[in-house]
């Protein structure tokens, strides 16, 4: 039996009718067409699906859509202000912190939450903070640099 869900996604109120087993990531991708959030695994490990739920990073493959009912959800599509990239997005570009781009949305969303918790993270803190995000392209070297730079830009 489909059930109704409503939440705020990237500042807009949205509603939908979903099968109860529908994951938040499926709701975002298939119902709302927000395909920037990716699915890279089926065991909650790769982190390609990370979004913010009420301001905190969450793996959207590990939440049911109904669990996010009433929540404020931010996806990668909701970060930039018009043409102006979020400082973390800009730092990833400046530091070549992405190659194929598939893990990137989750990396950026995780990085922003990492900086929320640790405004001036050390290299080690960044590396440990990325435990839940896998990248196969970059060797993380430039991602770590990007997050350091992005954190500095976010501190202003």
């Amino acid at each position, binding site marked *: 039996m489909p059930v109704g869900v409503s939440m705020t996604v990237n500042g807009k109120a949205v509603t939908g009718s979903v*099968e109860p*087993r529908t994951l938040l990531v499926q709701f975002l*991708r298939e119902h709302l067409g*927000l*395909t*920037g*959030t*990716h*699915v*890279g*695994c*089926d*065991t909650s*490990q*790769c982190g*390609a699906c990370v979004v913010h739920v009420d301001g905190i990073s969450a793996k959207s493959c590990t939440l049911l859509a109904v669990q996010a009912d009433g929540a404020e959800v931010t*996806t*990668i*599509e909701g*970060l*930039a202000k018009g043409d102006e*990239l979020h400082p973390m*997005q800009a730092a*990833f*570009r*400046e530091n*070549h912190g*992405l*190659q*194929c*781009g*598939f*893990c*990137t*949305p989750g990396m*950026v969303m995780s990085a922003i939450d990492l900086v929320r918790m640790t405004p001036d993270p050390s*290299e*080690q803190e*960044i*590396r*440990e903070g*990325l*435990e839940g*995000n*896998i*990248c*196969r*392209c*970059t*060797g*993380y*070297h*430039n*991602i*770590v640099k990007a997050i350091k730079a992005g954190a500095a830009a976010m501190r202003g």
Partner: protein
Amino acid sequence: MSETGIGAAVRRKEDRRFLTGRGTYVDDINRPNQTWAVIVRSPHAHARIKSIDTSAATAAPGVVAVFTGADMQVGGLPCGWQIHNKDGSPMLEPPHPPLVSDKVRHVGDQVAVVIAETRSQARDAAELVAVDYEMLPAVIDMREAIKGGSLVHDDVPNNTCYDWELGDKAATDEAFAKAAHVTKIDIVNNRLIPNAMEPRAALGEYDAASGDYTLYTTSQNPHVIRLLMGAFVLQIPEHKLRVYAPDVGGGFGSKIFHYAEEAIVTWSAGKLARPVKWVADRSESFQVDAHGRDHVTHAELALDKDGKFLGLKVSTLANMGAYLSTFASSVPTYLYATLLAGVYTTPAVYAEVRAVFTNTGPVDAYRGAGRPEASYLIERLVDRAARETGISQIDIRRRNFIPAEAFPYQTPVALQYDSGDYNATLDEALKRADFDGFAARKAEAAKRGKVRGIGFSTYVEACGIAPSAVAGALGARAGLYESAEIRVHPTGSVTVFTGSHSHGQGHETTFAQIVSEQLGIPFDNVDISHGDTSKVQFGMGTYGSRSLAVGGEAIIRACNKIIDKAKKIAAHVLEASEADIEFKDGQFTVAGTDKKMAFGDVALTAYVPHNFPHETLEPGLDETAFFDPLNFTFPAGCHICEVEVDPDTGVVEVANFTAVDDVGRVINPLIVEGQIHGGVAQGVGQALLEGCVYDADGQLLTGSYMDYCMPRADDLPSINAGTTTTLCKHNTLGVKGCGEVGAIGSPPAVINAVVDALSELGVTDVPMPATPQRVWQAIQAAKTAAAAE
């Protein structure tokens, strides 16, 4: 150098769309009236299919169709390289149907496809397909497989695909007869699972009105898929088949090959006249994406009394898995044994390679493909030879390096290296790694209870795949040239159509830098188009670090044709002789005058001509070039790794990693360094973390990210990457390729460092991956052996 020209660290054009969630990967594409496919896969490694009952699945909610191998009678998935046995007979190529009917040969083998209105319905119904299996003994270990007890394919005796050799056996035996010392090694190159972060996906579509098929697929080479699937599997002529690989989330080789699912969704779309979409679960990716490496090798190196290498003998078993994947047969032969001279003057090399079928998933090219297996073997052997002879790790390499003045250098195993300076890369690496400070770092680590070691790897590889004449002589069934089309638009902007494919490499940026510089037009006026067979004339795709060395040269040649044509137009407009037209910085000038025309004016004139001489000057400005290289390119380098090992727990920490690579001319240093970082991460992953494990029954034990250890950010150090440069001699840009060097150079550096660290404890070898358990076991075994003496 301009800010966007050759050599500049230009920030990538493609990043904005990826960073804002606007990339278009195959799973992001949905077509009207689309259905979903879920593949029913074998849970067994080896079993005969007695019957398949699809009735319950067919009756399940939302199901549109269920097809089995009996329904899908099409051609088999072809292998692109034919290898010959020692006796000259061709390799055995058993059938490779997209859906199997007779028996399953590995866990994950395709048995049926369930197509439904939604993915959930297809998944639910797939559970209802009842397959009655008669279990057969599985053969997993290659050393058992060649005894021929159980056969993966009934008509392949001893499970041997081919038994091949390269090199002069008699000369090598003679070299060993003269040896003062022989160093021997038994080595396993561990099986890896590629794990591009984007799972594979395929979406087939059929237009009943036109009879046209479209396949959206996660491919590194869409034209090759069109050729293989169209001509060999489904018999769809190429003008009725479009293959489009849009943004692709990493490949590393695993998305080169033509996979069953591509044929299944395309064929099903034709049958149903509805789009059919399949997206792999990660669990499926683990099972059925082609794996990499998986060699078992014995090798011996003959040295004279001064530590000069006299000869090398190598005997390798190479796992093909259950079926021959597209490139599989070439990997342990022409991409491996031809590299066994390494960077050394070893005058005699003999290699024999036996390719073996087992009840495991197919094995094919994975980042480096054959060359990492060669470099690991050689550099482990050289490391051990140094320890046995008491010559230093650095001296033994310098004594045997091919000298810089010896190029072009013909090796005893088919290849001719065009350029290189191996001492220069070693010197730069020693400097960057602060080799002189190592002893102090080791002493300091000892105070903390850690044993610290340093390991070296000096490697060469062959890429820029491939000179068609050479590849053809070696068994390739197709030439491996590349194409480029430069379409100049009327107002002077340019679209470049390349047959190579970017899945993270940044072609949209690098290629635009080249074209911008060649044509003297702004970087932002150049767009790169790739991946769509309906736009790009033809192409062989991206693998073997070929995009720039082969595809980039095709672009240069197409640019040159554009300039030649533009000169004709300028000469006509400026009323000068074509020979007097000079082109520089985007301006066509009449030599010795102030008469000139900008590139954009020539472009406009080309499309709005008024009085072009009919017989000699066509309108338009659009040129195509195909480039077939004369030789492979030969990047080389030196990687130095320092590790600290906790002798109580066996935990290995990479303390420093230095990579100095000669990749020829660097177009964009930011992108080149990024490629090297990524390659090194995969190499360190192979050395310390990653290993595919099947149990004796052929069940995949490492089938998820919980079981297969992917490198995480806190497993890796920052990478100290640098380059030295000798130019490739046979392309205009002098480029060699940088996509695979990291994965080729790094594994032996890591393991040599671990062995160096543990040498004081009596350890002489540690297998890959050097997990804490294996390192601890090696330490305990050495202690036990020492106590017994």
